[in-house]
């Protein structure tokens, strides 16, 4: 089953606390997940200040600056993994280095229900 692990943290603190992970550690962890065969994709994101939100309403696209909601913690990156169940996904998510300063939301990927 696929799970999306969304890494949230206060982006001002993500890189500045004593326990903050360095990029090398993040890369090493991503490689270890890759090595275990459970990795589908993972990326770190630019600051939320670079975010743009689009909506389609009545055929018209509206574009707003910023994330969809202003929150104390921001989406900083994600892992898309393949895990046997939620317990395995939580183990992978809990060891993402940024989980030490932020948090990781784990969401099962829904299979689209397509009828032929």
């Amino acid at each position, binding site marked *: 089953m696929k799970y999306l692990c969304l890494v949230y943290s206060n982006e001002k603190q993500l890189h500045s606390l004593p326990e903050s992970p360095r990029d090398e550690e993040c890369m090493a962890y991503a490689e270890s997940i890759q090595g275990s065969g459970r990795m589908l994709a993972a990326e770190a994101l630019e600051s939320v200040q670079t975010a743009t939100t689009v909506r389609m309403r009545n055929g018209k696209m509206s574009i707003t600056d910023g994330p969809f909601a202003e929150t104390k913690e921001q989406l900083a990156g994600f892992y898309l993994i393949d895990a046997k169940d*939620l*317990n395995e996904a939580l183990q992978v998510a809990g060891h993402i280095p940024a989980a030490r300063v932020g948090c990781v939301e784990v969401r099962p990927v829904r299979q689209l229900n397509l009828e032929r």
Partner: protein
Amino acid sequence: MSGVSVQARVEQVYRQDSRRILATLIRLLGDFDLAEEALHEAFFVAVERWQRDGVPDNPRTWLVSTGRFKAIDVLRRRARFAASRPLLIAQAEALEHSDWSDDDVEDDRLRLIFTCCHPALAADAQVPLTLREVCDLTTEEIARAFLCAPATIAQRIVRAKAKIRDAKIPYQVPTFAELPERLDSVLRVIYLVFNEGYSASMGAELTREELTREAIRLGRLLMELLPEPEVLGLLALMLLHESRRKARTSSSGELILLDEQDRSLWDATMIAEGCALIERALGLDGFGPYCLQAAISAVHAEASTAAQTDWAQIVGLYDVLLAGVPSPVIELNRAVAISRRDGPLAGLTLIEAILARGDLQDYHLAHSARAEFCRQLGRVTDARAAYERALALTRQAPERRFIEGRIKGLE
């Protein structure tokens, strides 16, 4: 066998084994609702079949096997109508070819407990789900015990089951690495059930015996399956508290404090079992807060009168407890123990420090303890104000009457 005695036998098997059979069916079917349906169909068939063919040698195995076939039928029936047909057929076929053995049955019960208490489930759903699935309490019984509307409880259970299914919370005993955190969650659920029964948080009655009984039963089951020190500690703690049930309330339902209880009413069998468990647990590696709290309870249990209580030992145990789990409530209890060792002024100083830094402002027991110390020190005005604050924070009728009695006693 006559119809009446077959019926009675089926009922007996249901009482004794229905949760074990359900747990195995959930593992085999991977679906709570389907397992419940299969369980009921299996018992339904048993009444008729056992009458005709006699009661099988191993009724439990017979019921699991029948439930499994009933589930295959249900999946096939659903497949006839559903859009997700290939998936259901595959599920039915996989089930038909799956093996199961009776050896896994005890593990299945443990799996069920760990699944119902999974920390990924909403905290307010873990307790009702456990009581429903593991203890077989009805939604109405759970709702009554927690003074909630049955619809609220039913909704929490439905949501929890949906999350188990959709997020794929596995039906398994956690691995060694996950165990400490996962076990905490199970112990917390059991202790919540117990506390709600031991000291009902609202309403007319002081205790709800059926909840403490279920909690102790869960504690015993968990110990049988997983004899970790904290599991022993929690069971000991519950038994030692429960041993005082008869002494805690007067015949008219009024609260009686530990000091004023008639200790001859304490249940000696429970005390002996609790003390033996705690002795065993403290000899193992990895004892924690439940063991220490049980040890404190055991010190009380061993004193034949309140005056003989070894307060110095209790203070020492609170010190160890507080070092492991810093918590203002434990600090409050320690302050009470210190007041018994060193006098009310020592206790009052500690409680006032806790309140001054903003903790326990809304906890009625902090204010009633403060009131008690003020009363003992002759500070009547302070005592009255503190009792009144405690009264304003208490929702439970006997406790309210108790505080009102104390306020009257000041005059």
